[in-house]
């Protein structure tokens, strides 16, 4: 950095600049600050290395021979990468169909939640109607309802509807109830949009549906992005409900459920297991890395409310 500033700005300018940014610091204090900066940096770097070590170990295990995983100690580099592990997990164990199930169920759940929360959030945020307080009250009371509490009635309901062994059953189970946060996020956003926008459209003769789909929903794209991320995580990582719903229907398993079934059926194929785990985690980690900033902002925004 110093070299960079030197060449670009010349030494004279640089000293002026430094004086301005830290006028009262003595050299000794500056050295102490730099030292503590590096100590903290090194400490955090070590912590993060330990933190993500399980993932590094997992990727390494997925490229080793089963015997090699535990025999080579802490060495993460495989003798020679065995890509065949991935082929085995993908086709022989059936992860290709688990993957497809996970994608279908996740996309279905995300679409369902966005559709119903955007509609409900819009009227809750912008309009007054009979029953509004009751509705908000119910939403808030059930905010923290645990999944273990609702699983038996939901299973029974899905069974009655004849959807127990279908993708739709899992999608409805995950997305039709709950997810209050998404509705509240939309309501909060729509509340802040100025009223005149709708008035103008109404004078031009637009009905409520046109106003919502043509004007309001496109305006709310940041919330749609946030809800997409949160629901993608939720649905992709869901376990209890897909597990219960597919107990008698192995071909409907999602990746999370398939993984645990794999453990029961091939309990010594550790490298196949590791490859399957990498395949299952890859999409969600990829989405995270691409949309990182938005991820963090969505979660931070949720707690500030």
């Amino acid at each position, binding site marked *: 950095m110093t070299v960079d500033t030197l060449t670009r700005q010349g030494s004279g300018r640089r000293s002026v600049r430094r004086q301005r940014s830290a006028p009262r610091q003595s050299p000794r204090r500056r050295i102490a600050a730099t030292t503590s900066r590096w100590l*903290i*940096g090194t400490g*955090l770097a070590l*912590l*993060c290395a330990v*933190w993500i*070590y399980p993932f590094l*170990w997992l990727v390494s295990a997925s490229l080793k021979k089963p015997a090699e995983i535990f025999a080579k100690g*802490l060495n993460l580099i495989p003798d020679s990468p065995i890509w065949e592990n991935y082929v085995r997990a993908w086709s022989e164990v059936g992860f290709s169909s688990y993957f497809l199930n996970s994608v279908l169920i996740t996309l279905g759940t995300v679409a369902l939640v966005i559709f*119903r*929360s955007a*509609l*409900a959030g819009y009227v809750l945020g912008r309009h*007054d*109607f009979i029953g509004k307080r009751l509705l*908000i009250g119910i939403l808030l009371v*059930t905010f923290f*309802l*645990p*999944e*273990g*509490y*609702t*699983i*038996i*009635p*939901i299973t*029974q*309901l899905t069974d009655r509807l004849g959807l127990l062994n279908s993708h739709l059953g899992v999608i*409805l189970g995950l997305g*039709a*109830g*709950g997810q209050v946060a998404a*509705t509240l996020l939309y309501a909060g956003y729509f509340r802040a949009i100025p009223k005149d926008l709708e008035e103008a459209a109404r004078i031009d003769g637009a*009905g*409520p*549906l046109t106003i919502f789909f043509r004007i309001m929903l496109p305006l709310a794209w940041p919330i749609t992005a946030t809800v997409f991320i949160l629901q993608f995580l939720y649905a*992709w*990582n869901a*376990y*209890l409900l897909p597990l*219960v719903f597919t*107990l008698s229907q192995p071909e409907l398993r999602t990746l*999370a459920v398939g*993984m*645990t079934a794999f*453990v029961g059926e091939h309990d010594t194929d550790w490298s196949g*297991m*590791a490859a399957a*785990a990498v395949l*299952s985690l890859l999409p969600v*980690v990829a*989405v995270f890395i691409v949309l*990182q900033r938005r*991820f*963090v902002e969505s*979660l*931070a925004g949720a*707690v*500030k409310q």
Partner: protein
Amino acid sequence: MDHMTATPHRERSTLRRLREDWWIYLFLLPTVVGYGAYTVYPLVASWWYAFLDWPGFAMRGTFIGLANFKLLWHDDLFWNAFTNSLVFLIISVPLRVGLALALAIVLNRPSTPFRGLFRTLLFLPVVTTGAIVGVVFTLILDADGPVNLALVKTALIEEPVNFLGNAGTSLYSAIGVWVWKWLGITLIYWLAALQTIPHELYEAARIDGAGPWREFRYITLPLLVPFLLIITLIDMVGALNVFDLVMTLTGGGPAFSSEVIEVYIYRTAFQATVPQLGYASAAAVLFGLLTMVLAVLQAIGVRSVRRGMAAR
């Protein structure tokens, strides 16, 4: 709620309002139907099921009054699961909230290098699938796995410990993995909370000669109390929803040593040869009550803190 917008509508009669606002109810339809069927109905139905002897989804239940609750009261395994859930909560939540706060304070300092990168790495486990993380950690925490190798090599322990296969350590290992997996999200919450504190406050304190500790004690901490309550509540509810991780790590074992309430419910309702759906529902109802008590206590706490701040 919206008193400003409510005023002009006041002249309209109830009937007319209902007729004119038909589209509002149309917009609410998907939520009302979905939410009614998949959240409100289960909430109510669980109570009814708790009074039934109901040996399977294909059968009809028979009303047996309070018999399920009486049985639960004397069921050692239920109380074992209940205690395990509470132990899980009491150990993991302070750990998660405290560690995340310490890290957030360090990561919030402008002088800390690579803040974005560190934050991303610490957050990474949060996005991963709990059930898959659980399976992976059965290998990592294995007696021959990397954690034991590292601990033996650095002479922190003499003999490898079978963390998950040992009744004395299984629950605590699950707590450790859970804190590792979810710490990142609490960290983000804390960072968001810290950013609501105006920077000028610290500058003023520094001019008055306050050191880092006094800054923390007299500025950061008091302003963080409302966030502390909300974050603790979110993490507590999280600590009661650990089915995916515990089920895949230990399955509740060995010898029920790490069986939390959700695993107990799952086992009685879905894994038993004769499913005991009514009995499991009674356990679920008690579990729901526990969660609700915690949420209400927190809500009271938040309200009293807000009132205290407004009074000041």
